[in-house]
């Protein structure tokens, strides 16, 4: 693919093969869709019972409102714009709706992970294609899922006020943005440090810098506590199911992408070796 004159590095005795971004993206999307499907099965099995419990609590609380409170809620609802308001049944939400969300997020994260793996390939010290791809997805899981979860853990239905959704959304995505940018920055930093220290020292220094950045950011952002008297056991079961779902989604992306990228680079290396042999004859 390196037929542009500015693209190819200085000629070396063994030119490294290059791969196209599209080859990565197509693999990332395929892996992401499969990972979304697996995450859907896990979320359906472990998460949906907790969502149902939380909705039952929500409805029980609504049934205990006084007539005056009910009238006030209905008046507030009537004031809202009713264009496009629909009712989706619980059966649809927990099957097709959940599947739609998992497939969309799986494909998006799989595709993004594959492009990140493409950028990292051959550029992370002496890591092999499989090693760098697995590391990229692991960093993605920590930066995109784990760190935001640590400050703003998933909340079941019945927890959270509609009045604060704006601030909570801004805080969550603010932390996510800082976490992802910090992760990219420290990987570049680790590469620079690796020239001066050994690989492990560079990796630990970079990981430490990342932790400092996200910890300070998390401390600066507002704390959310809208739990009220929501039962602690249901909350924990829900959050555990949510974390398992996220971990399975990322693990499936990691395993699948590492296998496919590894096989693709093996083929590219074999092709280069064959060409060199042919050229030397």
């Amino acid at each position, binding site marked *: 693919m390196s037929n542009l004159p500015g693209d190819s590095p200085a000629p070396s005795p063994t030119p490294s093969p290059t791969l196209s971004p599209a080859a990565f993206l197509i693999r990332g999307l395929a892996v992401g869709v499969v990972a979304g499907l697996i995450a859907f099965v896990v979320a359906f099995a472990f998460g949906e019972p907790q969502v149902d419990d939380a909705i039952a609590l929500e409805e029980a609380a609504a049934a205990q409102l006084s007539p005056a409170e009910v009238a006030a809620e209905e008046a507030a609802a009537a004031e809202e714009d009713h264009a496009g308001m629909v009712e989706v049944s619980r059966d649809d939400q927990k099957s097709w709706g959940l599947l739609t969300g998992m497939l969309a997020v799986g494909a998006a994260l799989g595709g993004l992970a594959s492009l990140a793996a493409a950028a990292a390939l051959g550029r992370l010290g002496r890591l092999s294609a499989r090693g760098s791809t697995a590391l990229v997805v692991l960093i993605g899981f920590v930066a995109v899922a784990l760190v935001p979860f640590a400050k703003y853990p998933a909340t079941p239905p019945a927890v959270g006020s509609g009045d604060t959704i704006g601030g909570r*959304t801004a805080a969550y995505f603010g932390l996510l943005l800082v976490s992802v940018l910090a992760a990219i920055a420290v990987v570049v930093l680790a590469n620079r440090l690796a020239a001066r220290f050994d690989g492990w020292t560079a990796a630990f220094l970079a990981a430490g810098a990342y932790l400092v950045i996200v910890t300070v950011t998390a401390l600066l952002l507002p704390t959310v506590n809208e739990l009220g008297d929501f039962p602690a056991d249901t909350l924990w079961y829900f959050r555990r199911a949510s974390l398992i779902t996220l971990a399975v989604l990322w693990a499936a992306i990691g395993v699948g992408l590492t296998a496919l990228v590894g096989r693709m680079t093996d083929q590219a290396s074999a092709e280069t070796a064959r060409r060199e042999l042919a050229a030397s004859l």
Partner: protein
Amino acid sequence: MSQSPATPLAPTAVGTAVQVPVVPLLQLGSWVVFFGLLAMLAIFFVSADQGAISLPAGNAVHEWVHDARHLLGYPCH
């Protein structure tokens, strides 16, 4: 992503290790922009639409992906 494309490979002992292929960063850039926007759009609809921001108005998207939004840890209602 500010690495110099002039050094696409970490120095490896030529002949002893298999060279890891690289993807030229200039080629990768446009794909990252193109797919990055697409992916953000997809994640937006699942994670935040018709919560803090509504495109389009209503609650159909929110209701449909409701359970995925909760279980993937995004702020819901």
